[in-house]
């Protein structure tokens, strides 16, 4: 099998994948008698046509950056962390416990403490599958998937039987106190000139960008990052070079879980102000597609996260302005994830074929 030029691998593969997803989505929309172009128009207008739309798109993107980075870090060690969803939900529990524990005086203090809580709970949830992989050889893909279900059931138990305030029917925690409310983009001086209406995107987006830089520095500028990447390329070679596999698996998964958990400061603390069921809303799984599409590089993750933020917000707009039923909106989202995530290799092989024909002609 031939190889692709780097530019084609980085730019062309995602674009072709997206185009394929768009074509099939258009066919789906056409088959129920709606106009695909008008649908696209609604999505674009609603997600990036106004500062208000951007406020939602960036809010979703913030979550996807965290989960995308979580998958990225693990991927460089050759580990496939499918458990972002559960780790993010546990992170939400960490945030809720921290926010409800004390009457926080100022959001900045609360943000620091809640970040620690979110990261710690997410890391803990990833550490168990990591240990099973490192010590027992249980495949991390299987265990992290399983742990999503355990997390979900555990959260239900916590919300229904432990954290639900007396007299409330809804399985959710109490509202967090005022002191934990993170400033949204429309409340930040300077940015409030752009974002004039209340939007859910909040200061967490700066934490997310900082996390991108930190992950880049970790992977490409530290000894640990080198060890992680070396282990990912070849476990046996790394071991021969004196790198302890158990240590690398544990540390990598703890960092990965902490990143997924950190997502909770965006949605649980920044947006809803309480913990509800399914708080992660599938962002853990979208993180996989984001990381694959972003070629496991923080810059790529950032861009892919914004793209998925657009798709998510655009999809929500479809519910408001069109008559496309919710089931088909989920189908369209699923198609994009399928093509950009799972069928990535198929597109690459197609392109390799096209390029090899081009080369033959040239020769």
């Amino acid at each position, binding site marked *: 099998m031939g190889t692709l030029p780097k530019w084609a691998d980085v730019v062309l593969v995602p674009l072709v994948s997206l185009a394929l997803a768009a074509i099939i989505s258009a066919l789906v929309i056409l088959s129920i008698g709606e106009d695909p172009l008008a649908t696209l128009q609604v999505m674009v207008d609603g997600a990036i046509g106004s500062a208000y739309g951007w406020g939602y798109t960036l809010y979703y993107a913030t979550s996807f950056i965290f989960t995308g980075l979580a998958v990225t870090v693990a991927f460089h060690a050759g580990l496939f962390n499918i458990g972002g969803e559960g780790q993010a939900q546990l992170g939400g529990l960490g945030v809720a416990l921290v926010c409800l524990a004390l009457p926080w005086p100022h959001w900045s203090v609360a943000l620091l403490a809640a970040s620690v809580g979110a990261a710690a709970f997410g890391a803990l949830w990833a550490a168990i599958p990591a240990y099973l992989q490192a010590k027992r050889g249980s495949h991390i893909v299987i265990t992290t998937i399983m742990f999503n279900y355990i997390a979900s059931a555990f959260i239900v138990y916590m919300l229904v039987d432990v954290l639900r305030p007396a007299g*409330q029917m809804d399985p959710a925690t109490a509202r967090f106190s005022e002191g934990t409310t993170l400033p949204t983009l429309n409340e930040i001086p300077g940015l409030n000139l752009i974002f004039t209406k209340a939007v859910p995107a909040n200061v967490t987006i700066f934490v997310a960008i900082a996390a991108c830089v930190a992950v880049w520095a970790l992977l490409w500028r530290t000894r640990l990052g080198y060890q992680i990447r070396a282990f990912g390329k070849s476990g046996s070679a790394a071991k021969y070079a004196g790198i302890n596999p158990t240590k690398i698996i544990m540390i990598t998964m703890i960092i990965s879980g902490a990143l997924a958990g950190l997502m909770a400061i965006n949605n649980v603390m920044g*947006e809803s102000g309480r913990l509800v069921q399914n708080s992660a809303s599938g962002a853990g799984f979208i993180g996989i597609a984001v990381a694959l599409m972003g070629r496991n590089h923080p810059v790529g993750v950032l861009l892919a996260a914004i793209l998925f933020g657009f798709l998510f917000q655009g999809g929500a707009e479809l519910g408001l302005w069109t008559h496309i039923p919710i089931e088909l909106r989920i189908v369209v989202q699923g198609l994009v994830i399928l093509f950009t995530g799972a069928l990535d290799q198929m597109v690459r092989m197609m392109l390799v074929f096209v390029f090899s024909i081009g080369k033959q002609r040239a020769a």
Partner: protein
Amino acid sequence: MTLMKSFLSAAATLALTAGVAAAEPAIIFDLGGKFDKSFNEAAFNGATKWATETGGTFKELEMQDEAQREQALRRLAESGANPVVMTGFAFGDVLAQVAPDFPNTKFAIIDMVVDAPNVKSVVFTEDQGSYLVGMMAAMASKTGTVGFIGGMDIPLIRRFGCGYAQGVLAANPAAKVVLNMTGTTPAAWNDPVKGAELAKAQKAQGADVIYAAAGGTGVGVLQTAADEGILSIGVDSNQNPMHPGQVLTSMIKRVDVAVYNAFKEGVDLVPGINVLDLKGDGVGYAMDENNAKLVTPEMLAAVEAASAKIKSGELVVHDYMSDNTCPAATF
């Protein structure tokens, strides 16, 4: 400065009235789904009835999951929809947060009380309607054991179960009531498979009439009851036609009327608490050609008599939510 101000306010008024004139009502469905053949579908039918009668259009929205509740509500209010109607108690907490941010938008919530100057809260006396169908269940039962399958285990659903048990014991003091809940999360509103399992389990315990107060989960209960050759009782919508001759009756809760009225009142929606009870035909039992043969004249006479007593206040059905206890059943 003053001139500028008056200009601005004039422009604002203009913009506001333009917004009001163009406002279309909106409805958000709870997680059971729009076509649950029960609670949400009743709401949808009410909205559709308004649309066909007035020729108007309305916005509708189904959420993907729990976390989207607040955003869905906010986006709908932001889009200029007025009034915004939502089905289900779970919107209560979220609406209390959102309503103050949109003082010019009217909201209506069904099954929950939210105290805000622009919110109309519509609640039903499900205990009364359930009492009546409970009497019918006891009289139709040959084994003396009847069943109740609730959706999510919350005080609201216990109110259904408690009213039902009281009705059963009023008609047959020796009867046994088997009570089950489907789950503790909103997923319990849309789990027909588990509903079917519970119905089978209750039949095994001798129940030959089962009342399902479980939204979309009830579809599985009614199906299983029909398959097993026992009777069932539907809820919220008239579910008698789903299995003609095999559904004893349905406890009707006029969610459709609540939505229809809210849409009809439009931007002039009157805030406050609106209790729809037996007297006001807010709840009741369904009679049609599908169950005419199942309901004997004696049953009808007994239920009508009880109904008249409840309406006159002579008979008071204990409301579980008044003190979280039930004299006729333990949950």
